[in-house]
């Protein structure tokens, strides 16, 4: 991964707002990050933080009458948010692909899996049916589905969850995209299948050199597969760092609280740390830090002003949006050191 | 209270309209200007006037008074059929949904009933009995029951699998309480809507039966038989058909609006969003 290479994808102050009867829902509220070729960027947060909407916004999959976008999403110089629908269609599935959480509902139940992959290939690569089908079989082989020729003629319901997810990966990668967005790709899978899929994704990334955005709520998955991490809360980015730095020295109170509440990281403590209160309702976000009402370090300033991202790393980049960083980071973290593997 | 009403316009409009129709019918003895059965050969086919608000029919009877009294028949029939069909349908539907072996028997019976067009069945039933309000009600109820049974049975089957029904079983609730506390209340909304459709349909069928001469006895005024008689005189006395027709339409419309409004209002989730 070449640090000096130009960014593959630049998300710049992306905003996705919905106007509803209850007020404006700011699902994504000024999020920025970049993605390089060959790297995996993790986007972490709990439900409702806006991570999925961010991904859908990049691909312009959010219908724009109810939604309004702001900011820019630059891919190869052009702003994806300003492209025509026709131009976007050239990009989706071709240059930027996405895989979803629920493989059953993301695959067409009445088309064989081979046809679905071939369809994408035919559309973007302008090849004939036979060539597209052959390529589809090759893709199935690439994602380690045994007997790919036979499987290509099967329907999604005939495959297991893990296999469907592989099919979805094959479908997403069929046209060799430069960017892959994976939206909770393993959440619905068993843990052993999850391990297989993560392993597969890492291998394919190495072979194909694409940039991957890995959206998840599972910090374990992040630790194993990501190079850099963005933490989101209530539609905003609150922390960004390399994965090592994030786990070693989480700075934002939300990140720290999240890690303290995970049983995987707190094997020796009797009680898990709780984050009091609830995520604020999406239409009630106003001035000030969205986490202030639940934060033990909150100061009056936090409720009045929205914190901006500052770099708190001695070297490299570790962005945190918090006024109380220094106080927060000196409180002993409740997260015990993870045990060494036996 | 007023805010709640403002949130459910359909319910209010339907309810008010229906209430007006009901009140008119209830107040028939006082509202009617003439005796509805009073024949006056001298005042036949008169257009609406100050004395006869809706004019008179072929036998000189006051159309307004007959219409006002006729409403009683329609509303009584509509309400009774809706009630009877729903109660009967719920009982049969619950049994079919919860008692495996009874399911087939009941549903095949219902299939048989549904195979015959409702109005034909009603006519056939009327043909074998003496015409009266009660027999009309029963004759219309029977063809309406299968629809309710189907609805209740399918809801029962799906509710049976719901996790909260399993939870009720797990906390030791006996079957009758499960049915009354968990199953029935969750069927309420579709049931009510169905009941209003049944009522509207019943009113129309009764009108049709009377129109065909196999409904309520000819002397009893009913919107249906008023329209039947007026049919022959459309060219010269349109008012004979018009007014009963309008009242019939308003009644059916109000029942449907009421049903829609009730369904929305009764669903706690929907109520919160509106």
């Amino acid at each position, binding site marked *: 991964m070449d640090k000096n290479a130009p960014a593959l994808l630049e998300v710049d102050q992306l905003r996705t707002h919905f106007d509803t009867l209850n007020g404006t829902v700011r699902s994504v509220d000024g999020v920025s990050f970049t993605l390089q070729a060959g790297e995996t960027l993790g986007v972490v947060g*709990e439900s409702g933080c806006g991570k999925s909407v961010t991904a859908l916004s990049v691909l312009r999959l959010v219908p724009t009458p109810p939604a309004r976008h702001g900011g820019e999403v630059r891919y190869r110089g052009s702003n994806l948010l300003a492209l025509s629908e026709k131009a976007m269609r050239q990009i989706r599935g071709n240059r930027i692909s996405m895989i979803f959480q629920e493989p059953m509902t993301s695959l067409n139940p009445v088309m064989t899996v081979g046809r679905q992959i071939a369809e994408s290939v035919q559309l973007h690569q302008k090849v004939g049916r036979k060539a597209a089908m052959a390529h589809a079989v090759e893709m199935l082989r690439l994602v380690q589905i045994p007997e790919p020729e036979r499987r290509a003629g099967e329907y999604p319901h005939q495959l*297991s*969850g*893990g*296999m469907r997810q592989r099919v979805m990966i094959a479908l997403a990668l069929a046209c060799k995209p430069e960017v892959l967005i994976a939206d909770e790709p393993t959440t619905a899978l*068993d*843990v*052993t*299948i999850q*391990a*297989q899929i*993560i*392993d597969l994704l890492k291998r394919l990334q190495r072979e194909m050199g694409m940039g991957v955005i890995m959206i998840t*709520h*599972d*910090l*374990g998955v*992040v*630790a*194993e597969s990501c190079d850099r991490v963005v933490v989101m809360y209530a539609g905003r980015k609150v922390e960004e760092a390399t*994965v*090592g730095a994030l*786990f070693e020295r989480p700075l934002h109170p939300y990140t720290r*609280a*999240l890690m303290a*509440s*995970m*049983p*995987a*990281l*707190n*094997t020796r403590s*009797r*009680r*898990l*740390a*709780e*984050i009091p209160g609830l995520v604020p309702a999406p239409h009630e976000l106003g001035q000030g830090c969205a986490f202030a009402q639940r934060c033990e370090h909150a100061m009056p300033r936090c409720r009045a002003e929205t914190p901006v991202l500052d770099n708190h790393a001695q070297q490299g980049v570790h962005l945190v949006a918090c006024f109380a960083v220094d106080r927060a980071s000196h409180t002993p973290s409740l997260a015990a050191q*993870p045990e*060494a*593997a036996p | 209270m007023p805010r709640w009403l403002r949130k459910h316009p359909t319910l209010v409009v339907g309810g008010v309209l229906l209430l007006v129709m009901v009140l008119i019918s209830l107040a028939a003895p006082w509202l009617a200007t003439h005796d509805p059965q009073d024949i006056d050969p001298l005042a036949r086919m008169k257009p609406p006037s100050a004395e006869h608000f809706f004019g008179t029919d072929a036998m000189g009877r006051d159309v307004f008074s007959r219409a006002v009294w006729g409403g009683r028949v329609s509303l009584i029939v509509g309400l009774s059929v809706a009630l009877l069909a729903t109660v009967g349908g719920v009982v049969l539907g619950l049994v079919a949904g919860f008692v495996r072996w009874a399911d087939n028997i009941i549903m095949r019976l219902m299939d048989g009933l549904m195979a015959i067009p409702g109005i034909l069945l009603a006519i056939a039933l009327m043909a074998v009995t003496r015409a009266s309000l009660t027999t009309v009600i029963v004759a219309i109820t029977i063809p309406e029951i299968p629809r309710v049974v189907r609805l209740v049975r399918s809801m029962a089957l799906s509710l049976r699998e719901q*996790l*909260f029904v*399993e*939870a*009720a*079983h*797990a*906390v*030791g*609730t*006996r079957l009758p*309480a499960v049915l009354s*506390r*968990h199953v029935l*209340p969750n069927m*309420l909304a579709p049931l009510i809507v169905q009941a209003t459709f049944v009522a509207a349909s019943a009113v129309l069928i009764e009108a049709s039966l009377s129109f065909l001469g196999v409904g309520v006895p000819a002397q009893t005024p009913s919107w249906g038989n008023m329209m039947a008689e007026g049919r022959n005189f459309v060219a010269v006395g349109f008012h004979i058909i018009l007014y009963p027709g309008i009242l019939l339409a308003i009644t059916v419309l109000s029942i449907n609006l009421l049903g829609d409004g009730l369904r929305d209002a009764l669903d*706690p*989730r929907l109520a*919160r969003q509106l």
Partner: protein
Amino acid sequence: MTPQTPVAAPPTPLLQVRDLTKHYRAPRRWLSKPRPPVQAVDGVSFDLAQGETLSLVGESGCGKTTTAKSIMRLIEPSSGSVVLDGQELVGLSPEAMRLHRRDLQIIFQDPYASLNPRLTAGAIVAEPLRNFQSLSEAERQERVQWLFAKVGLRPEAAKKYPHEFSGGQRQRLGIARALALQPKLIVCDEPVSALDVSVQAQVVNLLMDLQEEFGMAYLFVAHDLAVVRHISHRVAVMYLGRIVEIADRDTLFDAPLHPYSEILLSAVPTPDPKVTPKRILLQGDPPSPANPPSGCRFHTRCPLAQPLCKTQAPALTPRATTKGSEHLVACHFK
């Protein structure tokens, strides 16, 4: 099989499950061959002591939820024995079983679907009380308030409907309902899987606090091994309808013996980027419970498989252990 009782014999276990089996017969179509039954649970046996938390872990299709619900007779077991506090539950009449539900409650996975959307929260929690205790309305209300306080819900919440609560709060309602009769055993069917991480912590803490205060036992069905590790005293690993290993928590997580347990534990992503996962990758997909492999059901994917494994199913037998409680493994070679 009979598990060996440990040296310092404790009082009779609260729950004794022996050879629990649930086979689903696929409906036969006329004129076609009878399809083989789905062997969801096949000969499961274990004990559960008073106040103990035993977790059943395994992947989808392993039968852990079916086992838990069969013990409660929410699903009727095909055969086997379930003895709760000395009383055999299998074969009891529905009414007799109903009376035992006072001691045997359940918390479901889906916090929303397990609550009747048309009842208020207070009515939902009061239902077990209505079923079994002849309390006056006032006494019942008082008890409901007390339960609400115990699970961390405000008393005013009793008048609200389920849809007005968040996921975590709904699960608290489920817990309050399960707690109402102060049962001896609560079956927890993946109670935190549907919740966010930070809310999971709240619910897990709550369950542990309640256990400390009231002393009930938990049969905890879960697939999230991190949560299991936090909350369990003992853990049973299931694969395709059978228990393959059962041991106390620390033994299982530090030194698992059964190959499947090792693979399962190694598959859990470690939230530490510095540790390279020593992952044993399981090949292929799990076989279907309708057509389980012969002999040891794991032999088709086991790195240690030998010809013996194909023909003979290993019994769940004890291994030497330094701790007090037993360590049972079903494997010919480990």
